[in-house]
């Protein structure tokens, strides 16, 4: 990773700080040096992040003051590592920087400055129609318009509010597919887990994550998902055989149930679940059933980012839907996506 160094001498071997990260993501950084004459290292940070972890420094060998961390000594010469915690901010983009200063008798003798941009997604409603018209099974009036005005992925779930006359439901064939998939999945997990007698928790996490409906409106559930997701990911990363076994469980479970849902249906679901600017629809194939005539739908949009952050939902004003016939309409049809890719 390229950084701008402003070094007075060549004692620094390597410095790492990411140049971009999602708001809320941990920001790791380190510096390696050799033959530097210094009596203190000062790390200056602007407009971001709190110290989360510090490596190779004894507990009593550093202080935190305002936007600075003062390191009086490291345990083993030549290496300092830190992890900062970034937080979600009001601003979509935060431009910040971090500055390593090697001090000698109060002067900065080596300086290394690095820029960092912290970004986040945000969903904005660009247009909410008062009414939608459906003719011959298609929406012919201006649709609901949404846009990710920030950067980064949004996972979005549509819900109808409790008072909504029109409800959102999962199609029967999708339900059948899920049932078959989970049955096979359970069987495959049982077979594989015998090879990992000390790691029951891995398979509990795997079953939980596969069976749980991802629902950003349920905060405790999302916290549970986040915890298990990170734990499972770490286990998969640290163990190649386990990783391969888990991939196999998924592959077998999908292919044994391929007859329930067609390749074409799957492909359409895949395509329709991807909106613009990295917005991914969780329940794109869920549908609304309408009879001929007028109905009122009250929609709530729950979304989160890839860190599964808690983001306030968007509640749309009631929309009147008029259909010329009985119709079963997939939810993605109600929306138009604006903005970039």
């Amino acid at each position: 990773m390229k950084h701008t160094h402003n070094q007075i001498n060549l004692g620094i071997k390597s410095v790492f700080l990411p140049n971009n990260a999602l708001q809320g993501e941990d920001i790791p950084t380190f510096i390696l040096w050799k033959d530097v004459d210094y009596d203190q290292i000062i790390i200056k940070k602007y407009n971001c992040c709190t110290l989360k972890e510090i490596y190779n420094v004894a507990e009593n060998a550093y202080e935190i003051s305002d936007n600075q961390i003062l390191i009086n000594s490291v345990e083993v010469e030549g290496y300092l590592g830190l992890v900062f915690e970034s937080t979600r901010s009001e601003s979509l983009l935060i431009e910040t920087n971090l500055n390593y200063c090697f001090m000698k008798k109060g002067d900065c003798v080596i300086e290394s400055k690095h820029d960092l941009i912290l970004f986040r997604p945000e969903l904005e409603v660009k247009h909410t129609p008062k009414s939608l018209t459906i003719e011959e099974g298609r929406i012919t009036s201006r649709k609901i318009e949404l846009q990710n005005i920030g950067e980064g992925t949004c996972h979005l779930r549509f819900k109808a509010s409790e008072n909504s006359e029109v409800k959102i439901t999962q199609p029967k064939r999708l339900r059948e597919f899920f049932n078959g998939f989970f049955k096979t999945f359970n069987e495959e997990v049982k077979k594989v887990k015998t090879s990992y007698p000390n790691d029951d928790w891995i398979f509990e996490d795997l079953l939980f994550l596969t069976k749980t409906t991802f629902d950003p409106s349920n905060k405790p559930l999302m916290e549970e998902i986040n915890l298990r997701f990170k734990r499972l990911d770490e286990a998969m990363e640290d163990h190649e055989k386990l990783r391969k076994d888990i991939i196999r469980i998924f592959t077998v479970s999908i292919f044994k149930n391929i007859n329930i849902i067609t390749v074409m249906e799957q492909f359409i679901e895949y395509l329709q679940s991807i909106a613009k600017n990295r917005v991914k629809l969780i329940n794109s194939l869920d549908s609304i059933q309408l009879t001929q005539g007028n109905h009122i739908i009250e929609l709530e949009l729950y979304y989160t980012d890839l860190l599964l952050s808690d983001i306030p939902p968007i509640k749309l004003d009631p929309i009147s839907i008029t259909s010329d016939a009985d119709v079963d309409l997939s939810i993605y049809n109600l929306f138009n996506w604006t903005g970039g890719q």
Partner: protein
Amino acid sequence: MSYEDKGLKVGIRDVGEIINLVDRLSGRLNAFNVIGRGVTLNVSQGNFDIELGFEVRPGRPLNRVVKIPIFDAQRANLTSLPSFTVLDDALIFDENDGIVLSLDHMPDGVDSILLNIRCPLKHRRFMSMLVNKQVQIEPRNDVTSYWMTAQFKHLRPLRDKLDSLRVEDLDFLVRVHIEQNIKEIIPHAFIRQLEVGRDLLQTKDREKKQSLAREHLRLAQANKLVGNEEKVIEKIEDLLKPSNFESYLDLIGQFYYHDCFQAGSFFRVPNFVIPSMMRVVSKTNLTLEEPAKEGELKFKRREFEDNFEEIFPKSTKKRKKRK
């Protein structure tokens, strides 16, 4: 400060188990002069090697048999230094005593020896206590590379007790999100053709079936993809085979490529046609001399999109605005 709570204590305890083992082994070899104590953690294989170099002290009588009570060793060998000749006869496994070094079977003139013992790592979460590893969850919209980093949490207890420590094959799984790129390239007309094809298969209403069949034929002719939906899907699947996809990846810095595989999202309907992302496995090593590493995984998006676009006949191609 929080680092004590973030696994360091546990980490030291776990690494401490290995260090204690090295200490105990050194104690068993007290008739010798221990000249080097090293540990190699083979992360993806889930085991570790202890390497002990020792030499015969001149003029000191030897214990003829040295018993090392390790019973779960996956491998152990003894080699003479500096020739690295394997001393098979001088090492045996015994049910009751574990690893036994029998010096009666040591050739004359050998005075420097390397003992290597490989044991399993029992704790699955061992590494997170020793090393902080991180990969970027996703880059900014116009960026196609993902940062990766690994760093030892604390060096001192390791440096104090070991002459060398090598953590080998630390795996890093980056999620390269490809679905937005795929969606943007697939022509709307082709998606419509698929939808009509699906409705045609599902409807039981004869009149509706006829009307859908007519629309499907019209779309297929216009798209120059008559009867070819499945072939298109096959071509996409081919492009996304790990052996093909790896040509769109570039590793920069101190990490090396290992593998990649297709993955769906836990958060949506399981996919069996097209993956939501490719998970790319790259690796790095850490040593006491190189306690922190950085790397970058670059996804060659432009090349990927160009090849993807070739799947569709020219008339159906979507003109993308390229930055």
